[in-house]
């Protein structure tokens, strides 16, 4: 299993040479020589098939992936109204306008805040949960399935359900807080409270999923390491910190990066959480996100130029975060490994 990696890279070259000669070599060994056209066809088949197999992906990707990417850039440097279509070339004006718009800064901060509130606790809980599951449990599969349950509920449904729990005046959560003497919290009006509410939705849906990924990584840790540590007198917690965590680092990077790409694009939850008429994320954009701003610019203010510029800025932010995450986790891991 482990050497399969080398065989795909280096092995191909060596295997290929005898195969190229095989049709001619088969002649003398006694098999009837194939007709010339068949040979040519076979060779063509070998040469073209790979391209044929990957072409659907690349063709479609060209249309729905690459083209939109380039076209977004094209749209973003023009006046481009939803109804009227393309207008004049305006250079970087759209970018300037978006960057100068106070809502952009605010919604960028909101997006990052919601992202941090949802991903940090989520990963911590997921790791703990995975550690709990990494035991000789009775009904193992059942436990694993049960933590995955929220994952099948769509973000829209999650937002509706949690929205009803987080009512400012008549919601269950504020009622319960009232029982223990806490004043009602303005989940829809106070900026940070609204971020917490939305982060809860994300966490509820994704924690179990990420716990399973971490669990898989934990199970790949060689058990001898734990045994050796136990002999050295390391307790369970100590084992977890100095063996498990460093060993699952690559998986953590994977989890963090995928949740970055998804988390920074959050749309359904905040939009459905909003109850004001404009649905832009609260009266003062308390919980408006960047993707909501794209929607607002493009389909409510009907300005596709600004929407495209915002989309590109979002892309830049996502890339920056992805790289930062990667470096950060590598660094944390390196510190742990130095000991």
């Amino acid at each position, binding site marked *: 299993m482990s050497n*399969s990696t080398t065989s795909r890279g280096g092995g191909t070259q060596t*295997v290929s040479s005898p195969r190229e000669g095989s049709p001619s070599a088969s002649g003398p060994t006694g098999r009837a020589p194939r007709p010339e056209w068949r040979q040519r066809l076979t060779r063509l*088949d070998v040469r073209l098939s790979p*391209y044929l*197999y*990957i072409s*659907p*992906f690349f063709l*479609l*990707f060209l*249309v*729905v*992936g690459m*083209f*939109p*990417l380039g*076209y*977004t850039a094209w*749209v973003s440097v023009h006046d481009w109204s939803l109804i009227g279509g393309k207008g004049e070339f305006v250079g970087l004006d759209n970018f300037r306008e978006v960057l100068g718009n106070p809502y952009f800064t605010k919604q960028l901060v909101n997006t990052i805040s919601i992202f941090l509130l949802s991903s940090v606790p989520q990963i911590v809980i997921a790791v703990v*949960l995975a550690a*709990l599951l990494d*035991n*000789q*449990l009775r009904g193992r599969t059942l436990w694993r*399935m049960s*933590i*995955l*349950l*929220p994952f*099948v*509920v*769509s*973000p*829209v*449904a999650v937002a*509706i*359900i949690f*929205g*009803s729990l987080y009512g400012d005046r008549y919601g*269950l959560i*504020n*009622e*319960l807080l009232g029982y223990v003497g806490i004043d009602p919290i303005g989940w829809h009006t106070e900026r940070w409270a609204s971020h917490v509410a939305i982060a809860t939705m994300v966490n*509820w849906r994704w924690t*179990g*999923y990420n716990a*399973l990924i971490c669990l*898989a990584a934990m199970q790949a840790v060689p058990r001898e390491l734990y045994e050796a540590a136990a002999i050295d007198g390391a307790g369970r917690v100590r084992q977890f910190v100095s063996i498990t965590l460093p060993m699952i680092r690559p998986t953590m990077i994977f989890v963090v990066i995928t949740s970055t*790409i998804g988390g920074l*694009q959050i749309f359904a939850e905040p939009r459905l959480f909003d109850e004001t008429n404009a649905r832009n994320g609260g009266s003062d954009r308390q919980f408006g996100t960047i993707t909501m701003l*794209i*929607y607002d610019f*493009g389909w409510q203010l009907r300005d*596709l130029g600004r929407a*495209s510029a915002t*989309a590109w800025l*979002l*892309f830049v932010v*996502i*890339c920056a975060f992805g790289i930062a995450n990667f470096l950060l986790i590598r660094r944390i891991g390196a510190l742990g490994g130095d000991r």
Partner: protein
Amino acid sequence: MTRRPGFLVYGLLAAFLVGSAAPLYWSFLLGSHTKEIAAQGVPPLLPGGHFWSNAERAIATIPFWKAIGNSLLVSTVTACSVVFFCTLAGYAFAKLRFRGRGPLLVFVIATMAIPTQLGVVPLFILMSEFGWTGSITSVIIPWLVTAFGVFFMRQYLVDAVPDELVEAARMDGCSQIRIFWHVAAPAARPAAAILWLFTFMQVWTDFFWPLIALPHSNPTIQVALNQLQSGFFKDYSLVLAGTTLATIPLLVLFVVAGRQLVAGIMQGAVKG
């Protein structure tokens, strides 16, 4: 390992299970009571008897069956298409040699990081040009293949199909497509099932693009739920009955294929 977990572990897991299930129960609970009771902050803990009448009202308020039908159609078609094309491409990347394989694979991996939201403006313009906006085609087309699918199948097939087998089939004079069909495809089945499930769920739960592309008269279930929630009478007994009802198809899928889902997530992690 002989670590036998104690009550603490089971207790914590059980607490987590309750947390996972509670919001769903809440949804059903409010959906089963009348509007007057649902409007109170703290309703009774046991379900009332109005679930079906509420659900019927929800179905009458939005084009519910049409939306479910659309979602099923979109999810199934895309899932099948993704599985087919990605297995094909994944196989090529895993087992066939051709010029430019390395760079192309790197390209596929790199595109996995591109957020779909980014292309939404041109996609909209494109679909409008073709006159597809408003029809279900506009939601299917962008999902027919995914970079993740190609990468996932490639990772699986590298190990699952022995090079010797492909070799041998070739020596016997099998055409490439026959080798794919008789050697690679059967071996790919477990991974294909997982990819199918994931694509199905992903497309089923997608919201942003369908919201833009589809009209209120021809929505997917997520867009229809949005319509229900923004409803004029914000009637939670009705909205949550509808939400519960709309969640049932995936719950059924979960019960039937939950094991594969778990296995898929855990496998994807090790390979990724």
